Every structure is written in structure tokens, then in C-alpha cells.
């Protein structure tokens, strides 16, 4: 029963107030892209046991999408941040570095 802080509301939200939206920071490919690129973005998932970046929506609150950095093994939450970004903000990365030195996730580290 997760609690995540919605970066828009600024409030701690119970999991039942949120809806999960899968892996974050997927790069979408448009018309003319290769089959491999399409397959990669549509289906292939990092699905790590450990640090993960994922999308959430404050479904029964402000309705905004946001991102969370979370450990899928311990459910520890490293931080949440607004969805309008192409990569995790430095402050989040710093927190993760403190708690999981040497981390990497896809092309972030």
C-alpha cells in the first residue's frame, strides 16, 4: 500500500488515490521508424528488480501525471517529480546516488 507524494498537489497520496502508468521516460518513435524501434518502445520494458522510474497519475486528486523513482524490491521511494521532463531531475538522481551508489537505469545514471 504505497504512499507517493504528488508533486502538483504537494500532498502524500494513498495508492488508492492514484493510478499507475507503467515505465517512465519511454522514447516514442513516430512514422517512418524501424520495426525494432517500434517494438522497443511499445513492448520492451526494463522491469528491473530494484530502482525503477515509473509514471503515476493523481487520478482522484488533481488529475496530473507525475513520475516516481522507486525500488521494486523494497518499495522504497526515492522521490517524485513532474512528468514534463525528459529525464529525472538532478535532485532525484542525487537522492538515489546517496541510497544506491553506482546505480544505472537505461541510459541514466
Amino acid at each position, binding site marked *: *500500500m*504505497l*504512499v*507517493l507524494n504528488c508533486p502538483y498537489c504537494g500532498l502524500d497520496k*494513498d495508492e488508492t488515490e492514484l493510478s499507475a*502508468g507503467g515505465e517512465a521516460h519511454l522514447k*516514442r518513435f513516430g*512514422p517512418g521508424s524501424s520495426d525494432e524501434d517500434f517494438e522497443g518502445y*511499445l513492448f520492451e520494458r526494463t522491469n528491473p528488480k530494484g530502482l525503477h522510474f515509473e*509514471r503515476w*497519475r493523481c*487520478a482522484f486528486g488533481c*488529475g*496530473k*501525471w507525475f513520475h516516481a523513482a522507486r*525500488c521494486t524490491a*523494497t*518499495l*522504497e*521511494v526515492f522521490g517524485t517529480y513532474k*512528468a*514534463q521532463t525528459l529525464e529525472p531531475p538532478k535532485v532525484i538522481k542525487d537522492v538515489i546516488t546517496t*541510497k544506491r551508489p553506482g546505480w544505472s537505469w537505461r541510459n541514466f545514471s
Partner: protein
Amino acid sequence: MSVRLANQGRLIDRMRPLSFSFNGQKMQGYHGDTLAASLLANDQMLMGRSFKYHRPRGVVASGAEEPNALMNLGSEGHFEPNARATTTETFEGLLATSQNHFPSLEFDIGAVNSKLARFLPTGFYYKMFIHPRSFWKHIYEPIIRKSAGLGKAPKARDADKYEHYYHHCEVLVVGGGIAGLQAAESAAAAGVRVMLVEQTAHWGGRAPVDGVIIDGAPADEWIKSTIAKLSSMTNVVVRNRTQGSGIYDHGYALAYERVADHTPRDQRPRHRLWRVRCKQIVTATGAIERPLSFARNDIPGVMLASAVRDYLVNYGVSAGDRTVVVTNNDDAYRTALFLKSAGLDVPAIIDARAEGGGELMAQAIAAGIRVETGRGIAKVKGGKRVTAVSLCAQVGEGSEIEEIPCDVVAMSGGWSPVVHLWSHCGGKLFWDDAKAMFRPDVNKPPIGSNGEGFVIVAGIASGHLRSAEVIQDAGQAGLTAAELVGGKKAKDTKLPDAQDAKEAAMEPVWLMPHGASYKLRSKAWLDFQNDVKVSDVQLAAQEGFESVEHAKRYTTLGMATDQGKLSNINGLATLSEALNSDIPSIGTTTFRPPYTPISMASLAGEARGELFQPVRKTPMHNWHDAHGADWEPVGGWRRPYAYIQNSETVDQAVHREVINTRENLGILDASTLGKIIVKGPDAGKFLDMMYTNMMSNLKPGRCRYGLMCSENGFLTDDGVVARVDEQTWLCHTTSGGADRIHTHMEEWLQTEWWDWKVWVVNVTEQLAQVAVVGPNARKVLEKLGGMDLSTKTLPFMAWADGEIGGFSCRAYRISFSGELSYEIAIPANRGLDFWKMVVEAGAEFGINPYGTECLHILRAEKGFIMIGDETDGTVIPQDLGLSWAVSEKKR
């Protein structure tokens, strides 16, 4: 025999006698009794039958760990199977029957299994009933199933009500013994919000029974004043009869309050489920005494030493006249001393330790009790009640030294901390060899959202057996918990001074006697309910079921309704000895919530019947209901499937509606269709991305049918899009799709094109929509007067704002039936009036309302698709011949 004594009984009110019924027999008890205490007071030691062998079973324990005394309770809509007599408060008129026997508790045909026990070793069913194949389904399994189960299946609908509470606090303390009270007091003094829950009706736990002295007075006094103080504090919520049932991630906990189990039919909810959100949890959950494994330790009358003491001190009930105590520790001596001082006979204390015990043993000897050290019980004699025990050397093989007549055996194999809640969410344990117990490993607590531990164990639950240590540990736990959540350090932190007798070290005894023969081992029970014996676990080990999980599943040890509260530690010690391994390397099975079984009804709460899932209703809902609607659930809504007139069948109604709509005039409530406004400078560009066809080039005043696909290219929704003005579109979606499509649009806008200027609003419930369909559609609307609906001003796939019959509306000249059709949108609060007006005006044109099945037939006859029927998650527009609705640019 077991009887009520003339004195003692700190929890009962002798001024309030009550009567209840057991197996049809009227019995007397007192207010404050548990059912088990009441039954014992009526000399009813035999309370049930075991699962596999149907052996007679008496009560063993006095609390939540009881495996045997399970009852069918109540009747009709108040019936409950498998109710634990030790945790059921007796009330006037209580109705109990024992379980799992035929024809009666005293004489059970199923007990023949016990005689065949040697042919039914653990796992026998995996090795038998293999041939011939068809016999399993038709013969073996039906027989096995027939003998399965314990309590009766409930039949009547539940007559009680249930509710959920949400509760937020900083610190939750589970357990209302002296540890829990002290932890709560220390945390509360720091000014944080505290909730304290206790599963029984009474505060203080075991301390008052064990004669603990706090600040120079019997523990009861300190308990009383502490709970009074806590109850008066505004930052503290205390609840008895409320069990901390489970701990979940990020500080979520379940508390299960049995509000009215003891006062049925008093209009209060029977159970209340508290969903607690807190930051720190202190589990002061105490410990459970372990049985000893000696031959025929399952005969009624063999009980936990602490339970014998409980019945005596708490309820004034003596479990028997002559009690032999058998132990490997000092605590059980207390039972002997209490019995003796109550004037009861204690023929012997059998202490497996070569040197015996300490201070308490000296007191027992001084009280004239015979103490046999280095001895054990070879076997128990008796059938449905203990008649004697045979004494043997603990180190030997069980040759009988002497027979000691008795009718109760009070056994103690030491204590196991209740670590369940600590473990629910991943807290780890370590094996304390000196104390022979698993204790919470404070270095490996359950991890909260911040990566730090959020559970602290206090008192006996963390392995502190002496009361003084318990108070110190609990006070510290409460303070630590409060400090971690921002509490202020209280000034007066002096903790009360608790005193109890010094105890000599216990010695683990996993089998009595140590060298017991197979014959004895095959009669030494580990799991009383599921009939698992020492020999069964040894057989599992012999056959390679070496993992504790394998052994558990193969033998069913610990899988009964008590979830192994008495059997698990003894079982895994037996397994580790059989494997020549040590206990820590064997490990435990996983502790899963709930701590004890909780009612399914409490999980559902108030959401049942009409409230199971609220029905979404259109403004015309009640009109439909009054006009024969045969309802169909559609995506949270209910829509009329057809309107039944007179005595026609549903099929006939559908046919009538189809023909009438094709030939005359039909009217459909289309309000459930999703309506989403998309607005902004980039709205057109955005909709071109959402739909397979272009929407940006749609002219204001015109409509276009659009398809939506998922990112995979599979169809997910369709509907008519109307362009309202330069920057505004209104998108219709399927009835079930409104919320989904709204969310889908928001997702893309927020996460992919967040710099686009587009706003999306779901106005589905703001508008009622009425489809007027059929050859006479224009006639009825023109009769009502208002806007020009002629083909010239309002051609097919056009819309206009205007007025019809005095109602401001928006009229769409669109059709999902192939007939002349207008869909009229009006503000929801005027929907019903508009509908009624059209129906009345349409009478002369043969108007009839039609339902969803007619709609399906009409659209199918014209080849229009229905999302969900013609699509299944793998269908692309081209599969349905809808290439025309995919923009050339996107193919």
C-alpha cells in the same frame, strides 16, 4: 472434572450470570467469560474433533492460538463456522455447536480414521488413489471431500452490518499488555497522535495473571490507571476488542474491531475494519506458549500451563481436580503454585531439566508440591479425558517409571514471541539459542517508503521475558517511535518499576522423552487440528521434503485455522533434528496476514447489495424504470435493454421497437455516450493525433465520425466529433469509454505534448442526450417548434444550437441507425422534461422508446460497428472495412 470455583475470576462478574446453549444443552456462565471458560465451568472439556483422524479434542489454550475449540456459532443470518471458543465472549442466549463429527461429538464414526492412522501417514493421498483413473473423480475424491472441512457452510444471507474506518496517526501500538500500554504512554507523552489496540476485551495482557508487581502494587492497578490516562488524552485513541491484523507497506495497518460479536442484534455494526495509516508501528504482541511433544499429548485435558492458569485466575475455573505440570522452564511453576493456593491438587511437577528451576521451584517445593527433575512424560493415558500420565526419564526411550493419576496435564515448552506482524512486511528474525526462540532482528526491519524501518517490537514480543525488561524496552520503543515521527522528548521519563520472580534458564525440549520410540513419536502431536505428529515431519524429512515450506505443505503442519501458532516452532525444530541441521538454517515459513482469521464481511464493509457498485443514472433513469425498462449494465451505467409493454417477452419488445423505429418513430436515451470538450489553439492538431482521420479540417457546424486506436494500432474507441468553433471540438465516445478516453487525452497532453495549448474537459454528465430516430423524427421536432431542422439548414452530419419546444439545445443531424435521426443535447437538469415533452408530442407519430438491443440491431443491419463487439484488442480499422476512416496521410 472441570468446575467453577467459589472464588477467583478477575474478569467475570458473578452478579451477572447468563445462560447459553452447547450442542442443544443449556449451560450457565458469567458475564466476562469466554465461551471456552464457560464450557470448562460446565465440565465440558471435549470441544471438538480433529481434522484428519477425528480424534477427540479439548481446549488447549486460552487465546488466539487455540487450535481445537472451534464452534458453529449462532443461527440463520447470524451463523458463523469455526468460531474460536477461547476468543468468543459468552453472552446471554449464545448458541454453540461443536464441529466435524457424525453423529455426535461423543461418538464420531470418522474416528475410525484414527484406528487406520498407520495407513494414512503424511502425504498418503499423493501415493494412493492413482488407479484406475476414473476412480479419483467418481469415488476417491467425493469421499475425501465429504470428510473435508470443519464448520458447516453458512446458508442464510448475512443479517449483520459492517463498516470501515479510516484512521491517521503517527504511532500505532498493537497489543494492550503492559508493554503496549507503556509504549503508548511513552509515545503519547511526546505529543504525537497514538492509536493503541488490544485484541481482547481486557487491558493488561498476562501480567495480572502472572502476579507481576508494578510500582509496589499488583499490576492491575497500574494497568487501570494507565489506560484511564491514555483514554483521557486527546492525542490518543484506544480500542479494545481490536486486533492489529496485518501490517502492509508504507505504514498501512489493518485493525479488526469486533464491535458487537458479544452483543449481537444490538444494531451496532458487527465488525469494523480500521484502515490505519501511520508512520511508526510498535508491536507489543506478547508471546505464545509452546506445547511439548510427548505421546498422546492430544488427549483432552492436556493444556498449556499458561491456559490452565488463565482459566483459574481470570475466570475462576479449574480445568481439573488433579493437574500434573510438565515443563522445561520456570514459568509453568506459577501454574502449579496458583493451583495449589486455590486448594487444588498438583500431584507433580515434571521438569525435563536435569537441575530443575530456580526461585519458583523452591517455592513449589516449599508449598509441598512434588518436583521431578530430569523427567518427562512417556505417554498420557485416557481417551476422551486424561486419566493419568506415565513418568519416564527425559534422556531415555520412554520406559515407564511410574503412573501418576491426574485429569489435567499443564504443559510448557517455553515461549515464542509473536513475531507475525513484524514479519508481515518483510521484517527478519534471528534465532536466540539461549532462549530457544526466534526474535525480531532489529537490524532488518520492514522497510518504509523512506528506506528506513517502520516497525519496532516491544516487550516479550522482542524476546524480553522479565517484566522489568519489558517495561524498559516498551518505554524505549514508544519514545523511539515518537521521536522518529517528530515527537518532543517528554520531561518525566521515569518508567514504572516492575517485579516478578527470577527465573532459571529454560532448556529446549523438542521431543519427550528425548529418545522416544517410533511408537511414541507417532503419537506425539505437533499440530492438533491437522493431526500432524512428530513421525510425520520425520517422514517428510526422510522423503526429501527438506525445505521448511516443503515439509509444511507435505505434512500440512501449521496450515490449520490457527496457522501453526502452537505447532510451527516445534515442527521446524523436529525437522531440523531429523535433518541433523540447526534451526536457524531451516528458517521459518512465511508469516502472512491476518494474524487470526477475520471476517470476509469486514473486508467488504458497507459495499454490498445496492451499494456494491453505485449505479450511474441518466436524468431519464426513473422514467425508464417506470416504463418497463429491462436493465442492462453498461460501464457503470444502467441502460434499458428494451422497454417491456404489457405481457410481451423481451424478444417481442425488441422486435416491436426495431420495427416501430424503422417505420415510425423511436426515441433513445443516449446520455451515457461520452462527451469530451477539447479546446485551445492546438486542439485541431491534437485531435489529428488522437483520431485516425483528420479533425483539424472539420468545419465549425459540421460533424465527422472518428476512430481511435491504441499506440499498437488496435481500435479502442469511436464516435462522432463536432467542431463547435475555431478552437473548440466536442468528441463523443462510447458509453464505457468516456473516462478512459478522457484520461488517454490527458495523458498525451501532459506527458508528450505538454507545450501544446489544449484543454480537455469531460462533460458527459452535464448533458442529457436524446436520439429521435425514424421516418417521423423531423415531424415531431417540427411540431414542437423552434429551430429550423430542414435538410437545407441542418443537413446530414451537421449540428446547430437553437431551441426546440422552448428548450435550449444543440441538435446533431447524425444517425447510428441509418434512419432519419437527430440527437438533441440539453443541459442534464432539463433532460427529463425534454424527454417527456418529445414522448408526448410523438404520440401521434407512433413514438416508442427503444433500448440498447434495438440499437444494436438497427446499427448492425446498417453495418455500423460496435467497439467491444466487433473489436477484441487485435482488430485494426482495416479489418472492419473502415479504411475510409483512416486519413490518407496515416495509412
